[in-house]
């Protein structure tokens, strides 16, 4: 019985987790996708809440020029990072992101999407 209580306590301690690294769960436009129309915004959904003040998104056009304007903001309790986009022309865009989760862990990533009307 004592072993069972100890095991339950250990499990509870492990389950009462804080926050982990924020990894990209999915994005819109999706990673590696081709979309028929220019998206009005880019949304990044993370596994954990992120701190917008310590997070950044950079979007590069096919020639390597930045097209993002303004700061990203969060939604969905901080798990979604959104940045408005100007009217994008046809081409492949590169997204570089780095975020800090609410427990200060840092993660980064990069992907592409293509606009092909």
């Amino acid at each position: 019985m004592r072993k069972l209580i100890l095991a339950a306590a250990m499990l509870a301690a492990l389950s009462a987790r804080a926050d982990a690294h924020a990894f990209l769960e999915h994005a819109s436009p999706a990673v590696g996708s081709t979309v028929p129309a220019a998206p009005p915004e880019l949304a990044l959904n993370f596994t954990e809440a992120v701190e917008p003040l310590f997070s950044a998104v950079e979007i590069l056009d096919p020639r390597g020029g930045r097209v993002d304007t303004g700061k990203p903001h969060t939604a969905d309790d901080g798990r979604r990072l959104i940045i408005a986009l100007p009217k994008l022309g046809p081409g492949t865009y590169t997204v570089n992101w780095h975020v800090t989760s609410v427990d200060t862990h840092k993660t980064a990533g990069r992907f592409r999407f293509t606009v092909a009307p």
Partner: protein
Amino acid sequence: MNRFNIAAALACAGALGPSAAFAHVIAGNRVFPVTLTFDDPGVADEASLPSFMYQRSGAGGGTGPTHEYDFGFEYDKTITSNTALIVNYGWDIFQTNGSKTETGFENLFVTGKWQAYTNAEHEFVVSLGVIREFGGTGTDHTGADVHGSTAPTLYFGKGLGDLPIGYLRPLAITGELSYAVADQGLKAMPVVDPATGLTSLQFNNGNPNQWSGGLSVQYSIPYLQSQVKDFGLPAFVGRLVPLVELTWSSPATSPSTQGAAWTVAPGVIYMADWYQVGIEALIPGNKAAGTNVGVVALFHVFFDDLYPHSIGKPIF
């Protein structure tokens, strides 16, 4: 299971060290998961609770086969953001048909490790470490050596995400190379049998110095989904990392009583937010590594994710 020497352990069931000291590491866009048969290239606050290995050996003869079950425990504590101390201990069960079941502890291993170089852009990590085996801290009748060893060790990890190779970008390679200097060297003494006059060699209870290493090739589906192309895979599949690990060991000094041994371990790792679970087959690569397929599994928790403000952060 000896953290840097599964192949050697398979070759000599009963002479096993403690379970692997592993650390997960992030380099840029790459997360290197915790490999099961040898150490990873980074440092972190984490623990194996536990690792498990099963191996069958010695099927021939009157007393075999022997079923061996090893449980390994490990605690990794970061001292600074790029240095850590790692403690390994293990407990083994040996069941031989027709014989009494034997149980005992493995020797204690302590590793000092320095994550010396991290290149985020190129997903590249190099670490240096020293693994100290404390001889006589385990149970001798289950194979724990009375003599220890000290092993300078090099670790590396390289993700291929910076290369223009499309769907191969989720690939990564990690490796380890270690040279263990035995506290007590193995010595051979010629002994003449007075009855026959024949000369034979008698060995002391020392060990030869030893090279050992590991190499893993892993394909990260999380990387594929988040960096290359989102195929809309089910969430469970999107957290899997299939991989193949290769471990090898070879005596570096003469005399030695065993030759080189190597083992292949194909398997898969599931990466959750604060833990990972992995399982691999242990396939002997040559006769010296055994003749039966075994299995190794690992439940590993990341304290830096679980308790980032207390035990999950560096001391300094």
